[in-house]
């Protein structure tokens, strides 16, 4: 087991109250596996990834749980020890390729910095490795482009540079937080393809965070559906798409645009809005948007239950298999 997150909770203590951005989530990630975390904006995906990386900003703090990376609890490491792991064994790509690179440094210097921080190599070797990495992620004439500044590149190219930088030290785990959200559709596919290829090439695990289930079907092995800081459903990608259990998952699946659809059909959207994290109602956080909501749903929080290798948090499945959305 490469990564094991156990009962992780992360909260933001604000003047107006406490936001439980991540609420008691657990999952595991094996070597070489791609695990996707899916959920609407605000469901706590970025906070999860920042908690793992130790990048939480005040007033955010991990209030409980463990993050075991190769059996070491990352949350208990000193800043120095964490810095040795970050960018080296675990690295990260962010959503915003336009702003995630330092605008006043040449891209080669940004990648070289990563390499020389973690590896005992000369500047020359680091540069050679940088250019090789840029080549690997598909940047044409990498030796020349290495001298560019970020503003001289397109968004897609910058995300490739970010990927090259993240992979420069050969990480065992790559966290990609919405790596394609800011890009247009054709570039999105290219970047996903790249991640997939890199996983094969470097045998690394990927935690792929996205709000777009369409992205998941193409790349992931296993999927976690998150909502309001909680895991609502977990399944391998095949089961999730053929047999979604949670009404929230069903809603997300129905909102994927279908290219071969009749164009006069309006795109489905889950009704209502994500509740305000400061005034989270008791019971299931999805209850006020759910078509199957029962009285009980607004009062009690359902447990995450295992049903035939799939996990779901919903009272519809309390009685086990056979209940639920039935023929849906």
């Amino acid at each position, binding site marked *: 087991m490469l990564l094991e997150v156990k009962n992780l909770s992360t909260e933001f203590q604000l003047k107006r109250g406490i936001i439980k951005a991540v609420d008691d989530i657990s999952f595991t990630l094996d070597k070489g596996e791609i695990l996707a975390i899916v959920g609407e904006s605000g469901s706590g995906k970025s906070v999860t990834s920042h908690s793992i990386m130790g990048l939480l900003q005040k007033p955010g703090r991990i209030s409980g749980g463990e993050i075991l990376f190769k059996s070491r609890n990352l949350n208990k490491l000193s800043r120095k020890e964490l810095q*040795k792991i970050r960018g080296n064994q675990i690295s990260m790509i962010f959503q915003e390729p336009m702003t995630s690179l*330092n*605008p006043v440094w040449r891209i080669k210097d940004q990648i070289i910095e*990563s390499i020389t921080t973690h590896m005992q190599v000369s500047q020359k070797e680091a540069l050679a490795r940088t250019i090789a990495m840029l080549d690997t992620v598909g940047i044409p004439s990498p030796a020349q482009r290495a001298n560019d500044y970020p503003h001289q590149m397109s968004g897609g190219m910058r995300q490739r540079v970010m990927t090259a930088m993240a992979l420069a030290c050969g990480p065992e785990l790559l966290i990609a937080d919405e790596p394609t959200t800011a890009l247009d559709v054709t570039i999105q596919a290219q970047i996903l393809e790249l991640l997939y290829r890199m996983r094969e090439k470097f045998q690394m695990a990927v935690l792929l965070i996205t709000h777009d289930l369409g992205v998941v079907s193409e790349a992931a092995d296993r999927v976690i559906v998150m909502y309001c800081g909680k895991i609502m459903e977990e399944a391998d990608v095949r089961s999730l798409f053929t047999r979604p259990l949670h009404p929230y998952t069903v809603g997300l699946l129905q909102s994927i645009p279908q290219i071969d659809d009749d164009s006069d059909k309006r795109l489905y959207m889950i009704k209502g809005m994500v509740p305000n994290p400061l005034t989270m109602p008791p019971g299931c956080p999805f209850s006020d948007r759910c078509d199957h909501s029962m009285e009980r749903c607004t009062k009690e929080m359902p447990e995450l239950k295992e049903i035939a290798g799939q996990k779901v948090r919903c009272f519809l499945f309390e009685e086990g298999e056979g209940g639920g959305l039935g023929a849906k």
Partner: protein
Amino acid sequence: MLKYIIKRILMLIPVLIGVSIIVFLIMRVFSPDPAPIVLGQHATQEAAEAWRQANGLNDPIYLQYWHYLQGALTGNLGTSYYTKTPVIKEIMARFPATIELAVVAIILASFFGILIGVISAVKKNSIFDNAGMLLALIGVSMPIFWLGILLIIFFSGTLHWLPSNGRINPLLEPIHITGFYLIDSLITGNISAFADALRHLILPASALAMYSMAIITRMTRSSMLDTLQQDFIRTARAKGIAEGRVIVRHGLRNGLIPIVTVIGLQLGSLLGGAVLTETVFSWPGIGAYTVTCILKSDFPVVQGVVLLVAAIFVLVNLIVDVIYAFLDPRIKYSKKEV
């Protein structure tokens, strides 16, 4: 880039013409008649009239200006009414003292301003931040002559650590090569003169630096607060870079542009002469001297100084713009933008 610099330098010409017209008019319209001041209260009407005639003050203003411009173009800014010395010589005798004081003050102000500003931003809302901001508040609100007098009382008077007036002990004065004592004493290998000049600089430079330091501290803090929130800082941290390096090499390096801007503006105004500081510390610079010349209606000197200060202001701004291009690769000075 070179084209841009040349264009900016050429733009000095209209600026200087405009400034010279304004100062010319102001002096002649609002200043008292210099004749009785130069000749003394007891001079006769005829003598005063003759003096005015001799100095061209009876000509129409546009003609006076025309003559002045002709002189200026040939490098002749006239002579002081009192000392009869060429204005250029008068200025050159005092300006190095002002530059030396201003440069040392801006170095002090920049060093401490950036240091305190960065710490305040990194440790936002901590006791360090509060102390830094209090210091900055004191710096902008404390009258400079008052601070100067306090420094003199304490460090010269009570403790006898540092001298309180002049640039150097006259016995140690180095041979004038550049007019900057720190440089002249080093060139001539006169270490004791160097040390003495430095000791004389500490108090006036500290007093003068205080205000600029406060401004630089505030600008550094706000610029760093902004920069440290940027996504690329998070990227640097995610790369496993040590925090100190993240703050300086990524944060400060990016937040430097507004800081360099205020440093440039502060330097420009310090070079115009720090009248109060020069007066309190008997510093033989251009500021206090110019005020005396204004009061005595020494037109040629005042005109010369104002032109010089205007030129320096423009040049400092040009240097700041050139530094921008080095700090930020996104800034390009093409012909169109001029």
